[in-house]
């Protein structure tokens, strides 16, 4: 089932949280809503679920071709996994999972045997067999998360919505669980939307990522496209681990202090202040000055990883991150505090919200 939202706005009191959002989630995909806190991503998710209603004048919320905007949360056929799980604390794991089936009106409620069978299947699916009699408090965070997922899946939702599904877990469980979620999604193929503020999580798990900022969608794209062709300075910055330089653009050159870089392959009709982003791996680190290189001083080396991470300080005093392979680092033989030069091999320039 596809989800389509058209011209959705939401205001809490005087504060606009979502501004004229239109979004299409293709059927069967796993889509991430990515953004900083306050970007409106959770509100958008709750709107799809029916836990919030959009401002008057907003467009429809379509599940396939059916407008569900006027329907109650319980009648939309969605599964919702809350950030803090929201398990019913007085019920056992099995009772939690069976809840959605037991509250159905008598006419559509499955028999007790069918409910037990379904609960058993779901416990197997989320790998919690044998824990059906436990209370939520007797489970670890990761186990609670999976109970919440099983409970949401019990009603066979057409759409699965997850609010920061791994936000409250520690790093290792997070990694494990998000790969598991990806595999689970490949198995059951229910259209899923999850909210996260962790770009790594979004890029790793999702088919498509929607980057949100201040109540608007900045870009919706596949992780690969997002990484290589960020549409806005915000997306570029939010995807993390980039060096930002403020400069200006003149003609086909980006001017950055004493440095001028050619902007190649892009029409450069704009002039003005610009933001220039360089990923740490896109620097060439040299011992000697050269064309297009910035003088820096090496301040810190972090070599315990797949690549060597350097922290360097430019003449203005700001820090720049660079990354290079271990072999290059050894060949370079730089000492802490010594002078070096950085040459950006690749840079992305954004002129005042306008990408070139």
């Amino acid at each position, binding site marked *: 089932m596809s989800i389509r939202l058209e011209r959705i706005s939401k205001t809490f009191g005087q504060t606009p949280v979502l501004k004229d959002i239109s979004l299409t989630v293709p059927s069967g995909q796993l889509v991430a809503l990515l953004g900083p806190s306050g970007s409106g991503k959770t509100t958008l998710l709750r709107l799809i*679920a029916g*836990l919030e209603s959009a401002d008057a004048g907003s467009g429809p919320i379509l599940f396939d071709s059916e407008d569900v905007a006027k329907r109650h949360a319980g009648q939309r056929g969605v599964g*919702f996994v*809350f950030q803090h799980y929201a398990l*019913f604390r007085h019920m056992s794991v099995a009772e939690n999972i069976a809840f959605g089936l037991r*509250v159905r009106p008598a006419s559509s409620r499955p028999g007790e045997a069918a409910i037990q069978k379904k609960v058993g299947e779901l416990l197997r699916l989320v790998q919690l067999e044998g824990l059906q009699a436990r209370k*939520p408090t007797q489970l670890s965070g990761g186990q609670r998360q999976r109970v919440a997922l099983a*409970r949401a899946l019990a009603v066979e939702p057409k759409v699965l919505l997850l609010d920061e599904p791994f936000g409250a877990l520690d790093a290792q469980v997070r990694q494990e669980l998000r790969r598991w979620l990806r595999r689970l999604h490949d198995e059951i193929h229910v259209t899923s939307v999850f909210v996260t503020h962790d770009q790594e999580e979004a890029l790793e798990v999702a088919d498509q990522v929607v980057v949100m900022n201040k109540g608007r969608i900045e870009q919706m794209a596949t992780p690969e496209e997002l990484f290589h062709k960020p549409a806005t300075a915000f997306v570029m910055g939010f995807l993390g681990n980039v060096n930002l330089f403020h400069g200006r653009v003149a003609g086909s050159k980006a001017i950055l202090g004493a440095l001028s870089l050619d902007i190649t392959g892009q029409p450069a009709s704009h002039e003005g202040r610009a933001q220039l982003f360089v990923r740490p791996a896109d620097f060439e680190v040299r011992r000697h000055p050269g064309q297009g290189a910035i003088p820096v001083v090496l301040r810190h080396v972090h070599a315990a990883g797949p690549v060597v991470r350097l922290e360097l300080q430019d003449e203005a005093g700001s820090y720049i991150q660079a990354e290079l392979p271990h072999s290059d680092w050894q060949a370079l033989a730089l000492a802490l505090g010594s002078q070096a030069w950085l040459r950006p091999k690749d840079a992305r320039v954004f002129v005042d919200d306008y990408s070139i």
Partner: protein
Amino acid sequence: MPFLTSRSSTSYSAPAPGWLGWSLAAASFAFLGLFLALPLALIATEALAKGGRAYLAAISSPDSVAALRLTLISAGIAVPLNTSFGVAAAWLVTKFEFRGRGLLLSLIDLPFSVSPVISGLIFVLLFGLQGLLGPWMLAHGLRIIYAPAGIILATLFVTFPFVARELIPVMESLGSEEEEAARVLGASGWQVFWRVTLPNIKWGLFYGIILCNARAMGEFGAVSVVSGHIRGQTNTLPLHVEILYNDYSFGAAFACASLLALLALVTLGLKSFIEWRGRGASLEGRP
């Protein structure tokens, strides 16, 4: 409202108390002994001073039985009504943001901040013969003042805040995620309430009901103003004790007082039990 905070007491692993600790403890126990244990013992000895037979005769006299019945009836009406009101008000105040929420909260507290005698007087001014609605009610043959209806109304008013006041902090700390989860899973409003909300608030609710009941049965001031003290008709147990005492029938007065004291002890026992259970439940419910 000390009962709001009494449950959140945590156990501190403080070092063994020095002389300050001992003297504070001694002062507390001396105070409690003087003002609680001693009067309670006095009630028991005075009530039984003329033997068990006299005690039974005193509490089974028609006037005493009538007073007891009226006490039970007014508590039996006030407690369920104020329980449903309290749950509804707590739900409204904690689950919704609306204009006038602060005003509603102050109104809920009003009976606590007004002297009970004044509350009784309000009803006299409203429903009494010279009151605002008096002539109209006389014309329609309705009696509230100096009648059981007035006693029930006064009890309702005075015991109004207990359940709501007890539930509001409980429901606030629970948040509404579980209820939202239930709604998304297709539960109706009633199902959400019975299956999710009520099990989570039940200990707080019991606690509120017990306090509400204790006050409903023990209320003196407000009821005294509207009652008219007609023996066998508009006397509640606390009023009956006063009448007997003023009649110099001390034995009978203390006998009836012992019933109220017994109620207090039962309330205290239930309250401790619920605190003990509720603490277990809240520890269990901690994420």
